[in-house]
């Protein structure tokens, strides 16, 4: 019973990370689009305005979501995924969860370092695709285990 719950939790958490990566991609482009529309319409954004704590253009919230998701929610969920992976008997679950967590750490680092070296921001975009793939790979580990179980009695 507990085992099945853990397997389900593992799958849900891994898919959740994949969905979160998609949300991140969507939010950052939404924010950029809003910013450029704001500039297009004559808006000016200097550091004083950006740091004023108020929303200068409606899509600004997307950057806030991107920041909270990327620095808090996704790392926390990736850590929980790793812990859950210890309690499942899904083959290579720990490895997959470790890979996801590693890519999350790399992703946060690339995102922050991109503020200093914009070229690293480009890698942030590519690493997002790797992280998405790793999360889906992890989520599908459980399915492989379920498929292989009924085959066993036949072989014995």
């Amino acid at each position: 019973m507990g085992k099945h719950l853990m397997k389900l939790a593992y799958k849900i958490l891994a898919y959740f990370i994949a969905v979160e990566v998609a949300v991140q991609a969507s939010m950052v482009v939404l924010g950029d689009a809003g910013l450029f529309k704001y500039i297009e319409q004559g808006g000016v954004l200097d550091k004083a305005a950006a740091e004023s704590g108020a929303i200068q253009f409606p899509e600004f919230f997307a950057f806030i979501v991107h920041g909270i998701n990327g620095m808090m929610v996704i790392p926390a969920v990736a850590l929980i995924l790793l812990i859950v992976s210890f309690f499942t008997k899904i083959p290579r679950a720990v490895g997959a969860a470790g890979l996801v967590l590693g890519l999350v750490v790399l992703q946060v680092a690339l995102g922050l370092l991109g503020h200093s070296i914009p070229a690293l921001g480009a890698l942030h975009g590519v690493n997002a695709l790797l992280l998405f793939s790793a999360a889906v790979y992890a989520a599908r580990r459980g399915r492989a285990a379920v498929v292989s179980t009924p085959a066993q009695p036949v072989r014995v």
Partner: protein
Amino acid sequence: MNATRRRGARIRLALAGIATLAIIGPLLWLWQSSLMPGTYSVMDMGYADHGGAQAMHGSGHSGHLAAGPGGPSAPTRSLNEFIADPDRKADVDVTLVARKQRFKLATGRSVDGYTLNGTSPGPVINATAGQLVQVRLVNESVPDGITLHWHGVDVPNSVDGVAGVTQDAVTVGGSHVYRFVADQAGTFWYHSHQVSHEQVQRGLLGALVVAPAQAHAGTTDVVALLHLYDGARTVNGREGDVRVDASPGSRVRVRVINTENGQTSVWAGAPFRLLAVDGTDLNDPGPVRGTAVPLTAGGRADLEVTMPEDGSPVRVHIGGPTGLVLGSRSHDAPPVPRPTTNLDLLGYGTPAPLGFDPDQPDRRFTYEIGRRPGFLDGMPGIWWTVNGHMFPDVPMFVVAEGDVVRMRISNQSGETHPMHLHGHHAVVLSRNGVPATGSPWWVDSLEVPDGDSFEIAFLADNPGIWMDHCHNLPHAAEGLVAHLMYEGVTTPFTVGGPNHNKPE
């Protein structure tokens, strides 16, 4: 067979449990050890950094840090002793009443914030150099309590207005008197230093202008205080252009104050001179055109525009399309695009004596700003560090009165930081190893961009306990705060406590 399987399962479960503990245990420990006590003295915070001067001054002076206030090793003075002459009559006497209220900007926009005497920004306090300024602050209805900090004025420490360091926050119904001699002519501002990241943003601030003892005749003097209310960009509390009357050929001194958390820039549609930075006149500033002046968060820049003889108006931009329009017959001046070049103060004006020799420092400090993951008072995040340490384990820069102090401020944190030292003005010696060649560039608020490093120097001539923090005020609340402390000075105030002192 079954038993073996069950034992294997049990071992697997135990291993999983151990692995979980191996992850969660250290995290819990880090979380727990980051929790701040409800009440603490900033003197007990972090570790003492003597700037390499222990040998010179003896270990006896430093003993009081560990011994706490009133320690036996050195004669100590409470910072309450550092006051203006109590027998002297005030030349400028102002009462400011703080309220939490909804108020209207000139354009009718309604703002939910704080006012001083019913307005935000509060009234401009005008003094003449050498006058004794006395301000009585009354808290009518600000629930968190308030203080007033005199940003850029090197006041006696007891009236620096930092809740939990130099005073208790003034609670509702209470009042507090600030007395100081405004001995330096220049542009300054005042703001609350209690829950400052919230109270400043929502309006507890105003301008302080100290005129020189001998006024410049024929110059129009105008304050341009930048503040954003709920995202609305205002100058002197007005959205849109502020119009100033100035006759052709006359000179206008525009005192720009950046009360925001981020840098802005100032440029004009006519040549101008940059007369002063952070309340200190520059030496021999020449005219510039097609150049923008970057203005640090918390910093001030005084521009002098000479009005064209043909009577055409001049627009002074502050960060965006709006600002001030100086003119006589017409105030219809088209916007000017922001120049692509910035005025570099490292080489502006001509050198002048500093009053001390920065090449013979008594103390040398490093203030290196970084960033790393961790817990700040139990909150996980990626937080600022000072010299690799996270708040509250930050350095306490210890000096003795009369010391010449050099400090290297560098930033590898990925974001720019406007660094503000209370109670002193520091001179910029070099940036990224390139020495300053222009006028002495005295600052109280210095923008330190990501990847840059500055060498600054100052004379420790104002004993007390002084904050040295980032004036992007949310960053200060996120732990980018250190203190400068004079040997033998103690504070009776604590952060937290019954008044809920919370300086950041």
